[in-house]
């Protein structure tokens, strides 16, 4: 148990410190790296409570894909040079009250959610949910996700798909005069249409239109 406690406190300490560093660090790219560290230590905590599937999915989805895109965007925007000003400056602090209001809102929402969870024990009594050591948690998660919560699961997938399509539609624009390569055309080109042999009379030349 001692080893378990040591690991737990190490990971949670890293998680908390890196979460603080995400907001405090002046370089935006460093913030993203701390966010990644946070994700990794959270997934370690998931693995420690026996939810190995969730931990691995957290690593794959958040660290392997989402945070890479974060980094991508942050690096491309070139905000690395802009130092985070509002943390230091005292004159322009209009957005600090807004931030405080939003964070208190989120804080109370979390309290309501966690409190409701605590006082509604029925939430745990799903029909097919049995937590035993024989069934691996991937299996039991699949049993619940694809039976009781199949509609919620499908709808959340649909929402993600719609979000993706929406993002593509919003940013897609057709530009005039852009040359595009058609692979089918490139592959199906033959010698007869590509090469033309001309008789060139001397001192006159030929006119080639292109």
């Amino acid at each position, binding site marked *: 148990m001692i*080893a378990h406690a040591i690991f737990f406190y190490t990971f949670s300490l890293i998680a908390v410190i890196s979460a603080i560093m995400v907001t405090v660090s002046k370089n935006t*790219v460093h913030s993203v*790296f701390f966010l*990644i560290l946070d994700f990794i230590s959270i997934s370690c905590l998931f693995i420690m409570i026996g939810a*190995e*599937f969730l931990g*691995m*999915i957290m*690593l*794959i989805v958040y*660290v*392997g*894909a989402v945070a*890479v*895109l974060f*980094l*991508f965007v942050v*690096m*491309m925007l070139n905000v690395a040079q802009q130092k985070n000003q509002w943390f230091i400056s005292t004159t322009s602090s209009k957005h600090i009250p807004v931030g405080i209001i939003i964070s208190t809102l989120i804080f109370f929402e979390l309290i309501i959610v966690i409190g409701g969870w605590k006082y509604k024990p029925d939430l745990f009594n799903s029909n097919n949910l049995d937590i035993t050591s024989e069934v*691996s*948690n*991937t*299996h039991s998660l699949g049993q619940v996700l694809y039976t009781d919560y199949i509609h919620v699961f499908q709808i959340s997938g649909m929402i993600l798909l719609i979000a993706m399509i929406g993002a593509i539609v919003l940013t897609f624009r057709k530009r005039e005069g852009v040359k595009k*390569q058609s*692979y089918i055309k490139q592959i199906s080109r033959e010698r007869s249409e590509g090469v033309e042999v001309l008789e060139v009379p001397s001192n006159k030349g030929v006119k080639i239109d292109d």
Partner: protein
Amino acid sequence: MEYLSIIFQEVYKILFLLIPVLVAVAMIVWLDRRVWAFVQKRQGPNVVGPFGLLQSLADALKYIFKEIIIPASSNKIIFILAPIITMTLALIAWAVIPFGEEQVLANINVGILYIFAVSSLGVYGIIMGGWASNSKYPFLGSIRSAAQMVSYEVSIGIIIINVLLCAGSLNLNDIVIAQKKIWFVIPLFPMFVIFFISALAETNRPPFDLPEAEAELVAGYQTEYSGMMYAMFWLGEYANILLMCALGSILFLGGWLSPIDLYPFNLIPSAIWLIFKILFLFILFALVKAIVPRYRYDQLMRLGWKIFLPLSLTYVVLTASYLYYFNLLPKI
């Protein structure tokens, strides 16, 4: 005392796996160069040691004694961290590779997800190296590789789902045992081909070595690195290639199972079979490097998103319906 002995035992086991992997990486570099040379009718490295076998050791010595140059305008901590992360991630994934029924360091329930997660983290070493160098070519190379590795991970993930449908477990050992009747390469042959090509792209091997395309980007994310740090990137890259070969042989070629389950073949240790399969896949990797010219970037993205993704998704539907219709779904 009890804790100490447990720790010593674990360290002993880890070293027993790690040292062979590192030696194998060094040897595989030699093999790669030899195969590449033979295809092009050259000799390749053949001077140091018998058949040039010690060439990699000589190279390693050279790298160790070279000076490590850290660019003045680079982000020093991340610059140093990048090769370390690349190499560590390439090595920790070997913990779950089964070399036999019992010969596995960590026989965890979600082994395949672990390998997938670790290989998807591999992109960070490259991005960090490219960004921290604070120079144009490394940055362009790292941006390219980020996009490339994220895109091809998607198709590798879906191919893995195909195999999991047939095996019914996320444990690598169970996946191998599920292939006792028939190796998955036979029913899932198209997926094997796509997996192989995606693995080439995932490990930045030619023809998909755009992150380090020397004609356009000097050497991509490695441009500013020198000495031991460059060697660590290099080792990490080859350890990743070996890992992909191991994953391919476990998912499709029956892992440590012997191809013929008869008397004289049963005596050969299972680890040897796995090593043979890894070597077979690696030689294919090396041949591809020698034969195929480099892709253009837009062709690479098109191949990943418009061809491999729909193809592997369709195959998931096909496999699932076939298994369901003929009642072949694995019982858990």
